[in-house]
């Protein structure tokens, strides 16, 4: 049986993905995320987990240092890496939206958009026929309209609580997001049987 290296995003998605794998019948060690280890083995299943930043998962998978990975569709859309997108796991559901201070218009001369997702944002506004200036931030995007850095933000919304607490309102929904099972194109061919088996096992759980 081929060993599979799986890149897992640390944090929110991890919990749900871990649960899904266990439900699909995989025998995984309990303390997978507790430790500070970056590489964890699951010898019973011949799995090796790489615990990575969510934005880095498709990078590991594209370069083939991980055979498969679990990545949010937001990350996939932003990075546009050459990997197989095999299965919608249906977990970590949320969406990307534009938001800003209530009852405001965008600056007609230089509309500015703050975001962690510059590609998704510029694709969206270009699609609407609007030319905007993108300001790339790494976190606390909600700050930008509050302190006058940008007219709108483009960000992930799951419950809308963060927006509300910071006095922002949602303007447009851009795209729905769930986590995806992805695979390296070479691994997909060389370890085809194992990967397909995993897809089928997870598919049953993802639907349930």
């Amino acid at each position, binding site marked *: 049986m081929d060993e599979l290296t799986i890149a897992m995003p640390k944090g929110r998605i991890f919990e749900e993905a871990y649960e899904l794998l266990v439900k699909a019948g995989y025998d995984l060690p309990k303390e997978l995320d507790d430790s500070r280890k970056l590489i964890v083995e699951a010898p019973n299943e011949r799995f090796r987990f790489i615990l990575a930043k969510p934005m880095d998962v498709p990078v590991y998978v*594209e*370069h*083939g240092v991980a055979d498969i990975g679990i990545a949010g569709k937001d990350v996939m859309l932003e990075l546009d890496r050459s990997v197989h*997108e095999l*299965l919608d796991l249906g977990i970590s559901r949320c969406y990307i939206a534009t938001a800003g201070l209530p009852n405001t218009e965008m600056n007609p001369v230089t509309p500015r958009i703050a975001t962690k997702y510059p590609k998704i944002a510029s694709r969206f506004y270009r699609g609407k026929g609007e030319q905007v200036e993108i300001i790339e931030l790494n976190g606390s995007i909600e700050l930008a309209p509050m302190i006058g850095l940008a007219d709108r933000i483009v960000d992930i919304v799951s419950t809308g609580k963060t927006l509300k607490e910071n006095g922002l309102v949602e303007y447009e929904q851009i795209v729905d997001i769930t986590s*995806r099972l992805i695979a390296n194109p*070479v*691994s997909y061919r*060389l370890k085809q049987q194992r990967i397909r088996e995993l897809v089928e096992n997870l598919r049953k759980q993802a639907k349930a």
Partner: protein
Amino acid sequence: MTIQMFEKPLGMRDDFPFIAKKKAELRAKGTSIMQGSGYDLLQTPTLEYYETIGKISAIPDNALFKLLDSQGETLVLRPDMTSPIARVAASKLLKEKMPVRLGYYSNVFRAQKREGGRPAEFEQMGVELIGDDSLYADAEVIILASTILKELNVESGRVVIGHTQLLQLILKDFGLDNSQIDIVRSALVSKNSVRFEQLATELLDDASKAAAFKGLVTTSSLEDWKPYIDASNEEQAALYGEMLKLQTIIQRNGLSEAITYDLSFTSHMTYYTGLVFEFYGAGSGFPLGNGGRYDGLMKQFGLHVGATGFGLRVDRLLEVIAPDREAEPHILILFSEETEELAHEQAQELRTNGSRVTLQYAPAVKALEEFSALFSEVRRLEGATNG
């Protein structure tokens, strides 16, 4: 940005001696197999016109290195080898000698935007068989590429084969129009099975049809293709018949283990008109090379003939081929002023017998011990140590 003295332009690499040596071996092996199969090697210019090769090569515009010549014409550093060879083949010189078999080992240039692991200049080796539209030509190039991979000791080498024309016909049979087929193809090209399955439900109202459609991405043998072939459709039946013949030839060559027939496999290159294939091996996260039948490209050069070929990426082959751990015997002869003549005589004799010999004037070496450690054998000729 100030450029530091040690820096190279984005994506450019130096070939250090051990890599240069490995490449030379690879080149020698690869080209001798090509030549042994009747292919003549050729070299085309590094610079080509943007109007012709630049546009036809199907490499995205922002990946082309462009420059202007003294006449104001836009030139490109050649981004691929298939289109220059098609240009040569379409010339008067070779037109009368069809089918022609041409092989190459050349560097190509593609500007890179992203991080490391993506050289902007890399070598490719491959062949083009132009003027033969039979399946025997396709079989020949697939077997030739597989032979090269085998001879280079590529581990778990695998070839995935698809057929763009057959795929097109089958998608049409599902009742899709051309614009829908384009959407489906682009999902397949971007390897997005999730999108592909969504399309099945969106485009097909019949549930059993949708289920069959979804199954396209899991086909891995010609047996799996069979349910999709409409036997009453002459074109489909003929193409499928050819695939079976191809399979027989491949089996006879002992390669069947390493082949996956994936009906959903296709290419972003729109000039491929029939068979398409891609090569993989353990050790590289990226495909080793690809190829296919590109009658469409020849048409752009005004030649209505069949053509097929493959290209292998040397940079990726280097990743998958185990490096030689064993150091090659290399003799160092250290000489002094007095022993210079003797040293030359000895070196001459050793070299005649096939040894690799470095001659070095000993006093010119600052760190004698470190320098000597680079060789498998050191001979100090009389007087050399007092220098």
